[in-house]
């Protein structure tokens, strides 16, 4: 990327909380008795983006696109293979373990599966109180008061603090996970498919709660999801991932009303609308085939093997990541 391009990415609306440059995460494939590395799964293969203070950046893509890995690497739950991640001008890939421990208070995560991410043998109070014990100097009473406040904030009854996770429904468990994530007043939260495991009527409750908390606590979100309709609803800007690359990034309405990458266009037309009349007259682009393996991505543009409009150079040259105007970034030779 040239300096000129770099400049134009960072001049955005408001200050940058997270900045990601050329981020790669490759998982080695080992084989044989001596566990020699024979290849790599290129889960994330060179992505650049910023997240601005107070915004929600939606990160959408299908399974295997690398969206969850991106979120985990940003929080340093996995080490990056290459590239840089800065949090408020501090480089995370080289920061010391102690400093990272400090920074974790400000950077939290909400997980997909509310059944798997809560310890079944801890009460709700101890689950939410654990980060407070570890990271604050609160005494027992102050902690108890804070736990009650957090439970109220996420719409749970403080009198249920001594119950265990199994006594709650999926939606309520997700609220417990959210309470734990906001316990230390973080700046930035990665929401990794926070509603994917929930029923339709409960999804709306949790999304409304996340929006409310963002307003009240001025949080910055990276919202990872495969649900394009929900991302349109919650995000300010949206990045679309395919096979380890971000293929398009734009303001939310711009991306949905005026998608420039053929993959975004196909993805949009593949989402069924809850409206029989609109569905019956809809133009659909049905993509052929499956997503290629990230262990063996195609040369040139990663989308070339399924792209309905690909031309010769798409199969040989990797398209540049460029701003087509108004912060609408796209990686396509034809856009």
């Amino acid at each position, binding site marked *: 990327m040239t300096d000129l391009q770099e400049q134009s990415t960072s001049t955005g609306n408001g200050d940058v909380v997270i900045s990601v440059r050329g981020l790669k995460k490759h998982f080695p494939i080992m084989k044989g008795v001596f566990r020699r590395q024979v290849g790599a799964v290129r889960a994330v293969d060179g992505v650049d983006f910023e997240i601005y203070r107070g915004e929600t950046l939606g990160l959408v893509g299908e399974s295997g696109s690398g969206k969850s890995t991106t979120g985990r690497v940003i929080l340093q739950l996995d080490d990056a293979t290459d590239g840089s991640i800065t949090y408020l001008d501090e480089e995370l890939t080289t920061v010391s373990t102690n400093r990272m421990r400090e920074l974790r208070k400000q950077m939290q995560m909400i997980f997909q599966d509310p059944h798997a991410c809560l310890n079944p043998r801890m009460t709700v109070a101890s689950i939410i109180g654990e980060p407070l014990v570890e990271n604050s100097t609160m005494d027992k009473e102050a902690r108890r008061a804070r736990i009650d406040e957090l439970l109220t904030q996420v719409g749970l009854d403080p009198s249920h603090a001594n119950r265990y996770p199994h006594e709650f429904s999926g939606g309520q468990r997700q609220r417990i996970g959210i309470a734990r994530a906001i316990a230390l007043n973080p700046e930035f939260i990665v929401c990794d498919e926070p509603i994917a495991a929930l029923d339709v009527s409960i999804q709306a409750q949790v999304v409304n709660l996340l929006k409310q908390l963002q307003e009240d606590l001025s949080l910055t979100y990276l919202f990872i999801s495969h649900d394009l*309709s929900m991302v*349109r*609803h919650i995000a300010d800007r949206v990045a679309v991932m395919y096979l380890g690359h971000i293929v398009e990034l734009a303001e939310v309405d711009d991306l949905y009303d005026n998608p420039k990458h053929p993959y975004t266009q196909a*993805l949009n037309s593949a989402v*069924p609308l*809850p409206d*029989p009349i609109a569905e019956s007259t809809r133009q659909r682009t*049905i*993509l052929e085939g499956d997503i290629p393996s990230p262990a063996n991505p195609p040369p040139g543009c990663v989308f070339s093997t399924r792209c309905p409009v690909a031309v010769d150079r798409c199969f040989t040259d990797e398209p540049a990541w460029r701003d087509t105007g108004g912060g609408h970034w796209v990686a396509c030779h034809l856009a």
Partner: protein
Amino acid sequence: MIRGEPALEVKDLKTHFNTQDGTVHAVNGVSFTLHEGEFLGVVGESGSGKSVSMASLMRLIPMPPGEIVGGSVMFENQDLLQIDIDELRKVRGGDVGFIFQDPMTSLNPVLTIGNQITESLKLHTELDKKERNSRALELLELVGLPDAAQRLKSYPHELSGGMRQRVMIAMALACTPKVIIADEPTTALDVTIQAQIIEIVRDLRSKLGTALIWITHDLGVVAGLADRVLVMYGGRIVEEAPVRELYATPHHPYTKGLLDSVPRLDQKGEELYSIEGQPPSMYTEPTSCSFAPRCPHAFDRCAQEVPPLRLISPGHKAACFFNVTTGEPYVD
């Protein structure tokens, strides 16, 4: 809209599960008719009884702990809940095909695709081996599997999720069934692969004329596919209507809440409506409207009686004591 003769008539179906913690009343009196060549969508959230009720039609629930405690399922002049198991086996996979949610767990990992398709042909038809093989190839081509001849010799793990689901559809179609029951067939798939499968099903409809029951939690999928929709809640059908009518003028507050709580891809987001509260516990036999605790229109009668399905207009029924058109309770 296609309205043929009734292909399947279900009356007052009830299914319980007897567990250590008590009896789960999974299905509490479900009645509906599926017509020949009709696409029927069944919508509901987890625990609404949509999968259990449709699996009960073919007695495909584990018994025990499951128990079909009442009702009848009329198909080809016989009650599928009464006939003996050998008779029923001829119906399953023969006149009634199935497509399950997760093709990885419903395909046999140690048999080739070809073997699995020809297996049901062997059981249900008179075809010889050669004819069965050519029929299997024809089916795989019908569902658009690339390199169909090659794939007959493949094992399930060699195929992607989308391809496996195509194989499942081919298997369901093998014996030219009159009815196919598809239980969340695209839920485990990515959205672009889901679009491929839906396209195949649309295409097959015009070619084959099979009736289809499509169970899903996704209101979008049903909107583009079904002729008629059943909405389930708490083990009962709470609303039943032709698809356009259901989305344009929902009569049950649950249906309305559900439609309002789904964000739309083609519209800018405002505050989402959310149905407050949690789904009902199924451990007690319902004696009142299961949705009443979450309903914005609930009044005293809702807590006293189970509302029956009421005819709103031809083909449109809703199980609610409250008339959303007038904004007042119905006077019986």
